[in-house]
């Protein structure tokens, strides 16, 4: 008799009536064959696997994470609210201990959406995992969360949202940014001055196979997680490292994804990218589901799978080992790196340019944060989009110290209304959002 070893919750929301445009990779057909495979395997009949209906995220849920410009309805469609709501439904099931872990198979994806969202970039409008993480922190008082992004593209949105947050460990494994959208995610990108080392970016050379990928998980991700001791592990489960993905150049397999999942043991996995909709997704998703439920996945093999053909070269193996050593070294030095990044009370300014490829928007940001040794620190972002609005967003982190909370209000009150189209305050300790 087949029975899940771990009670596993699934949200399946393929949004069969939503596409960015008819021939876009993010279209109705994307999860069709995955659904066929999952239904044919009888997954929802397995005792211990429970299907949940997605929730709907509210504007308030989004406001914990994003400054949507000019507001939430302008940036999102219903499909985004349901997709993020799928992650939220799984979070509720896991946090209320109805299930041991859960997987939200939802679309559209979200991990390229940054804190300020003027529109769509990298097929993403709002960040599902980040919205879910902020929901979990507010609703369930969880302190330490790790997000492991295994999408082939750098999870630059999630990276940006938790850039200054020492309580959220964000690790992204992705194809080297010199060869792949969005062109970021290098090892030196370690997080803001108050959170250095809580963002780790692990670029992998094109052609990395299952062997190389799992090497990083075993020798870098797992030891770091063991030290960080998160209360919750979230996996941004993109599936575009697959050897048949049309947008990337990696050699990962369904077996590899299943093994990765059984090593990582995420509490919550959320689907991100993955566009080999016929040859990869049905098998990869099945492998992940079985691995999460603690079921045998050895039979989940793509019909054309040939491990010999997918073997990685020695030079790739060497490169991966070097990157792993470098990341481990950064992690060990994280406290010194934070010390070195400035003196308490010092103001640090960062300039940033963001291109929204999906909606063709160009954004310039100027961000100000004070060095703080007690919390992640409040910050403000001055953001000007072309075409679009000029806004100021002030963020007070959920675990902000008293001084930083006051500083946040100071930013907001002093902001000059004539200079901006809108000024936002994201007060996480009070779970409030204000606009002036």
């Amino acid at each position, binding site marked *: 008799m087949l029975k899940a070893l771990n009670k596993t919750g699934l949200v399946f929301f393929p949004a*069969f009536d939503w596409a960015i445009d008819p021939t876009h990779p993010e279209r*109705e*057909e994307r999860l069709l064959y995955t659904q066929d*495979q999952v*239904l*044919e395997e009888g997954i929802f009949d397995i005792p211990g696997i429970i299907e*949940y*209906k997605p929730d709907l995220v509210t504007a308030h849920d989004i406001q914990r994470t994003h400054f949507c410009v000019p507001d939430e309805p302008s940036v999102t469609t219903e499909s985004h609210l*349901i997709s993020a709501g799928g992650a939220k439904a799984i979070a509720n099931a896991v946090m209320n201990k109805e299930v041991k872990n859960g997987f939200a198979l939802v679309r559209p994806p979200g991990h390229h959406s940054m804190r300020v969202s003027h529109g769509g970039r990298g097929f993403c409008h709002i960040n599902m995992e980040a919205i879910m993480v902020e929901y979990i922190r507010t609703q369930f008082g969880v302190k330490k969360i790790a997000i492991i992004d295994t999408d082939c593209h750098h999870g630059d949105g999630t990276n940006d949202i938790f850039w200054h947050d020492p309580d959220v460990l964000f690790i992204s494994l992705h194809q080297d940014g010199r060869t792949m959208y969005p062109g970021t995610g290098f090892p030196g990108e370690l997080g803001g001055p108050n959170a250095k080392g809580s963002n780790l970016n692990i670029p992998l050379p094109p052609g990395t196979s299952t062997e190389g990928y799992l090497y990083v998980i075993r020798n870098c991700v797992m030891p770091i997680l063991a030290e960080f001791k998160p209360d919750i592990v979230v996996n941004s489960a993109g599936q575009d490292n697959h050897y048949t993905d049309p947008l990337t150049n990696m050699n990962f397999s369904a077996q590899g994804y299943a093994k990765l999942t059984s090593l990582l043991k995420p509490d919550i996995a959320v689907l991100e990218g993955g566009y080999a909709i016929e040859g990869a997704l049905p098998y990869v998703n099945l492998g992940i589901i079985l691995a999460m439920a603690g079921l045998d996945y050895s039979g989940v*093999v793509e019909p054309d799978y040939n491990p010999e053909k997918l073997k990685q070269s020695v030079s790739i193996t060497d490169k991966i080992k070097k990157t792993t050593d470098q990341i481990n070294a950064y992690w060990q030095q994280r406290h010194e790196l934070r010390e070195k990044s400035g003196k308490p009370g010092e103001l640090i300014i960062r300039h940033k340019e963001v291109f929204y490829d999906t909606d063709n928007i160009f954004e310039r940001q100027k961000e100000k944060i004070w060095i703080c040794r007690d919390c992640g620190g409040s910050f403000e972002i001055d953001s000007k989009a072309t075409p679009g609005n000029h806004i100021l967003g002030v963020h007070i982190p959920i675990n902000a110290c008293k001084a930083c909370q006051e500083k946040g209000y100071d930013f907001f009150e002093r902001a000059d209304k004539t200079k901006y189209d809108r000024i936002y305050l994201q007060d996480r300790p009070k779970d409030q959002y204000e606009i002036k």
Partner: protein
Amino acid sequence: MIIGLDVGGTYTDVVLLSSKGIENKVKVLTDPSNLFASVLSGFTQILGTTDPCAIKRVVISTTLTTNALVQQEMGPIGMIVSAGPGIDPKFFCTGEHYYAVSGSINHRGREKAPVNKMEIEDIGKRLKKAGIKYVGVVSKFSVRNPSHEILIKRILNKDFKKIFLGHHVSGNLNFPRRIATTHLNAAVFDLHKSFFEAVKKSLAEKGLTIPIQILKADGGTMSLESSMDFPGQTVLSGPAASIMGAIPYAPANQDAIVLDIGGTTTDIAFLVDKAPLLEPLGIQRGQYKSLIRSLRTDSKGIGGDSALRVNQGELSIGPDRQGPAMAFGGPVPTPTDALVVLELMDKGDPEKARAGIHTIAGQLDLSDIDAADHIFKKCCNIILKKTFEMIDELNSQPVYTVHDFLEGYKLSPRQILMLGGPAKFFAEKIEALYQIKTIAVPESEVANAIGAALARTTCEVSLIADTEQGIVTAHEEDFAEPISKTYSEDDLIETAYTLLKEKALNSGANPENLEEVEVVEFQKFNIVRNFSPRGKIYRAKIQLKPGLIKGFETILH
């Protein structure tokens, strides 16, 4: 005139209906060890002096296959399954003589690994040696491409009496259920065939030569001939018969709850505008899951004969039955005894009933009347609680489109229809307690036989058109035709209607009753590869809804 006969666990109920109403009704005790005798005695008694030539329709519902399934009394069956990538098929093993073989078809219906002919021939020899007569063949994704099942059948055909193929069972995806369902059909075939051949022969001897219709779990009928390929579809037709019997009294354009209060259990079902809700995939009871189309029913272990107990000052009801109510000579007090004490029911021995309720009253520190009322209320509460849980579950079912998420149908029943012996008393109490309109269905003790008599033929057809591969298929119906790139959704629906009509007529439907067709599912996808459109996939499922045949509904009012 029409005869409807329903063999239940305790009674076999029979009705004779004419255009004027119920002409005759009969209840005979069911002999579980000889269902044939029960059926025959039912027919003999109902016919009486009626001229057999006046009978235009006969519908039978039996527990034959249900019993075989529950008691695991099924002959040995050879099963050959080919799975390809995915979960190990050994988990779906149906017993001895189960073989997982090579060969693989993917989700688009493309062959990924061929059938190994020698492997099949070898298994064939072994099955034959083991004395196997019936074989089931199931491949994963056979509803997308049945060629492997067909090929395996061809290899084995001459050596076995009948070979059952998985893709004929249903158009739905679900490999484990397809295996279980194909196995069930093969396993009850012999039993079903010999039983109904005997029934047919005996009825012919009585002068009843019209085609016999058999009730299915989805509340529809099929002809005796088509039942031979899918005998498993008769499983659980009993609860379906009762629910169909409530339909004449159901409100139009509204949702309603049907509660059938039996001796040990209460069956719960739902009607939407007089049509019963169906299971999305098929019958499931505990671990047993199938692709047999079925009404969506659930049962709660509470009925008129449920044993009453008091544990630490708390009254418990059922789920077991120790015998009939004490009023009828049973060993322990039951809800029926409470009804007698409350002077609602004037049957049985009131002294014995009071004695039973008195022991419960003592433990609860209540007067006899108060205890009886407490028991009655608690029964209502338990049944209604379960019903509301089912409604919540139905309304929180996952959906897969933005449209369905935002505008999906929400079940909100405003009326309850009650069946079963004590229906009348419960209806009044529930209406008083819950302020929801509740009626006891008239002739409720033979509503099941009326439901069987009036049920119309149902069937379902699933189609897929794939303009990239240039084919439209309904493999369940052995239908496949080439199509052009310009094939449209209208073309698909037209094909679907044609196939459905043909299937219904083949199953013995009266051409007058083919109007209640409904498109259950329709999906449309662009196939895009390398950023350019390659074609379209259309998927449709249409059905002939369960309901009543025309011209008889009003006679019952």
